[in-house]
């Protein structure tokens, strides 16, 4: 982290960048939040640790409109989102100075809490420099421990790899944390009977409070004006005004990001209700891979995605019914 701060200050000082987009400490030991740093003194709050899950690439849409370059800290998986935004002309490469930051897996505080660890005062072992396999958590009830991998975000268990896909320089090492199959959960659902599937999604989606956190954090859901906030579709504005929006929100959202979603997992990370929203996106990814050929959005900057391309011999939609 110190190396990152030092380099950021240097680039600010020599005028290469006008601001730094990183994370600052939150009011709790585990909730750092995205922030801009423009002056040397701002950096006292700068943090980069294993709770910095937030994908900063989406912030670059706004930052691209600002005067001067923005130094943006991107983890390996965030660079996929940045590439996708580049493909869609939403961010300006020339306005970004990308520092690829090392990542050894990000933590999910909910997973720690689920283990019965409450009243957290501080957590050690979450620093990037540590190679700790165990988190030591100081709580008002005394010291507790938790295995790092047990506290990792779901997305880190299916890590896309430690390689940054786009960067100007890299600071810090990354680690591949993959220890699970990406589509295992999707396959588990696919194997269910229609009744079980329906029951599963009903249970999960019934929790939704339509807070829009998933939409607001998603780098693919970056429309200037969301279709759900538009009068053009008669699905207007307020959550409770239109039953159509109320009922179909998640499936339409999944459809809008299909072929563009990099599977960054931010939707599930920020959902206050703990809905595994990534399971929608990952289903589409799996289908696209199987039906139209392997495709990882954001791997490179491309003109056309799988849903804006076709081949003459594509499978017919009837395949869904046929394969049962």
């Amino acid at each position, binding site marked *: 982290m110190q190396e990152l701060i030092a380099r950021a200050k240097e680039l600010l000082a020599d005028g290469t960048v006008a601001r730094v987009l990183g994370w600052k400490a939150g009011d709790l030991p585990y909730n750092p939040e995205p922030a801009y740093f423009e002056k040397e003194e701002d950096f006292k709050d700068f943090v980069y640790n294993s709770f910095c899950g937030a994908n900063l690439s989406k912030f670059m849409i706004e930052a691209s409109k600002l005067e001067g370059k923005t130094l943006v800290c991107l983890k390996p998986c965030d660079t996929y989102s940045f590439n996708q935004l580049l493909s869609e002309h939403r961010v300006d490469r020339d306005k970004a100075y990308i520092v690829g930051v090392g990542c050894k897996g990000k933590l999910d505080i909910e997973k720690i809490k689920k283990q019965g660890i409450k009243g957290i005062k501080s957590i050690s072992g979450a620093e990037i420099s540590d190679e700790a396999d165990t988190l030591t958590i100081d709580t008002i009830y005394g010291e507790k421990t938790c295995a790092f991998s047990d506290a990792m975000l779901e997305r880190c268990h299916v890590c896309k790899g430690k390689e940054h896909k786009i960067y100007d320089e890299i600071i810090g090492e990354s680690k591949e944390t993959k220890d699970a199959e990406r589509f295992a959960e999707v396959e588990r659902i696919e194997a269910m009977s229609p009744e079980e599937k329906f029951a599963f999604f009903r249970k999960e989606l019934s929790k939704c409070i339509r807070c829009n956190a998933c939409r607001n954090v998603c780098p693919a859901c970056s429309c200037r004006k969301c279709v759900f906030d538009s009068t053009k579709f008669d699905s207007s504005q307020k959550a409770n005004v239109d039953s159509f929006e109320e*009922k179909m929100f998640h499936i339409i959202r999944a459809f809008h990001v299909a072929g563009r979603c990099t599977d960054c997992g931010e939707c599930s990370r920020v959902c206050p209700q703990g809905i595994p929203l990534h399971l929608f996106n990952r289903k589409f990814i799996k289908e696209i891979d199987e039906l139209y050929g392997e495709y990882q959005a954001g791997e490179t900057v491309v003109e056309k995605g799988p849903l804006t391309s076709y081949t003459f011999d594509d499978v017919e939609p009837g395949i869904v019914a046929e394969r049962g």
Partner: protein
Amino acid sequence: MSIEANEEFKPKIVAFCCNWCSYAGADLAGSSRLAYPADVKIIRVPCSCRVNPMFILRAFEKGADGVILCGCHPGDCHYSTGNFYARRRMTMLFSMLDYMGVENGRTRVEWVSAAEGVKFSTTMNEFVQKIHSLGKNVRLGDLRCRN
């Protein structure tokens, strides 16, 4: 469910037809007097690629029991490529509905040319029959799955 109730079931079926092939195919079915159930109501769109999955979901939300999309045969699209995009989009939509445990027989895509009045009528007869066998649509009314 009693047999009587079954007989009462009058499914609501929306058929999106592209203007150039399928709508003309439906016209041909009409001028050839090839009957299919009155439950089917056709909406004319310029091309199958004009059909937004939202339209289909909206139909279900408003009480449709089945939605079918008809377009030109792949390769014959009036706009040359529209139905190719429609094909991928619908494959994705159907796959998602299936994934969520919604009967996949309630949606269908069929390519019907302007010359295929017989196919149009046969397809509609089959589809209505299928919807009858599935009964009233309950699940698709609310994909947020609240009840």
